[in-house]
């Protein structure tokens, strides 16, 4: 078993597993993986005390590539699995990761309620504005005029889903945006997110060069967000609503009571059973 000292000496690559990603070379998800391992190494977390939970999608394959406990569940349910795990095992550091389809389309409801619930969880959404795994359909974050999916040949015509705005409106207490093209900056966001007591949401722009080659231009489009991190939801709403979706940084940190399982005075089961006695 590893001692605290050993742990301190764990390097990012020690948090990588021996399984090799199936991701396309050039996929932004590689850098998210790298940022997560950097963050874990920086925090010196014992591998066995961390669990990384995901759903289904290219991005959601990530748990197998990280050498911590992991769970690759079904499409859209990562946050539910993570919430159950954290509620039952508050001692663990629980991370959740997955794609824009997984998190905002099929998984949208759990996103809303995880933000509200404010468990001490970190959720990293790897957003490439497309369904990579199923060959390039529009996701909720896809621009309405992107017409390269055969399912929506004229574009979806539908407003984009705004992850940060929804997180804020749902009551998330930590909201940040990172970019896979800046894995060190992203590592910092992940570290802060893990350290934040409560639900932390890190929205990561992570290009899919295979189905969205034009996303290579994100490098030129991203910029630091111009506002100071705020704990005022009204200011944050203002900033997020007027944001172009490409600004990076922490938008919002609020100090809120963290969800915890309520405990009552302990009783034994046989004491409880007495209640049935007539």
């Amino acid at each position, binding site marked *: 078993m590893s001692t605290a000292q050993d742990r301190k000496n764990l*390097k*990012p*690559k020690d948090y990588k597993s021996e399984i*090799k*990603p*199936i*991701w*396309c*070379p*050039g996929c*932004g998800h*590689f*850098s998210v993986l*790298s940022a997560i391992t*950097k963050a874990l190494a*920086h925090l010196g977390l014992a591998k066995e005390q961390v669990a990384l939970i995901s759903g*289904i*999608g290219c991005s959601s394959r990530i748990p197998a590539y990280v050498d911590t406990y992991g769970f690759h569940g079904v499409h859209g349910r990562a946050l539910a699995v993570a919430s159950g795990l954290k509620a039952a095992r508050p001692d663990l550091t629980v991370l959740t990761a997955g794609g824009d389809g997984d998190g905002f389309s099929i998984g949208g409801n759990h996103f809303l309620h995880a933000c509200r619930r404010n468990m001490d969880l970190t959720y990293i959404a790897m957003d490439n504005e497309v369904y990579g*795994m*199923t*060959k*390039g359909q529009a996701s909720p974050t896809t621009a309405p005029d992107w017409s390269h999916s055969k399912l929506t040949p004229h574009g979806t015509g539908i407003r984009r889903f705004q992850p940060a705005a929804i997180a804020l409106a749902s009551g998330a207490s930590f909201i940040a945006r990172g970019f896979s*093209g*800046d*894995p*060190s*900056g992203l*590592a*910092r966001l992940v*570290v802060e997110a893990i350290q934040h007591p409560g639900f932390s949401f890190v929205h990561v722009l992570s*290009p899919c*060069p*295979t*189905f969205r080659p034009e996303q*290579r231009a994100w*490098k030129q489009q991203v910029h630091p967000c111009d506002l100071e991190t705020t704990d005022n939801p009204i200011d944050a709403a203002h900033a997020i609503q007027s944001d172009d979706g490409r600004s990076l940084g922490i938008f919002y940190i609020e100090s809120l009571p963290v969800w915890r399982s309520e405990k009552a005075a302990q009783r034994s089961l046989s004491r409880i059973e007495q209640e049935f006695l007539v």
Partner: protein
Amino acid sequence: MNEREQAMSAQVLEFLAHAQALETESGERYRELSETLEIHNNPEAAALFQKLAHYGESRAEEVVQQTGGMALPELPPWECQWLSAEGPHRCMEEAHYLMTPYQALRLVLRNESCSCNLYRRSLRDAVDLGVKKIASEMIREKEKHLEWLYSCIEREAETHHPPQEDLDPPNAPE
């Protein structure tokens, strides 16, 4: 050691910590690329990146050796400015599974020149003589490496054909 020397060595150590982070990052990135290109059935580019991964890793080792046993300061990744927007991870996004060794080399060249420029900047900006000394050594080493890269590129250019479009449709594994 007098006080000045001590302060100097702290700066040297900091420089080395940055250099070590930079070279480690390069090495790891090359290794990652090598592995993924292997999985994507591109053995030529994979072999090249493997070689370069070795280079990056041994450079990182060498940097550590220069400390003469002193511990490098702990450097959170984001405090290593060299790993920010201009750092060596950039090659990842440019990668493509059909990339030729020529394209791979060009990408590495960009990356390594960027590292070299960072060392040059340190040489220029540093007041600490120790830093200046080590930086110029590193630049020399980098320049050698860049030269080697240039020669490889030249060699590859002769036979290089840009990859053809992938006629096969993508897969949907899940």
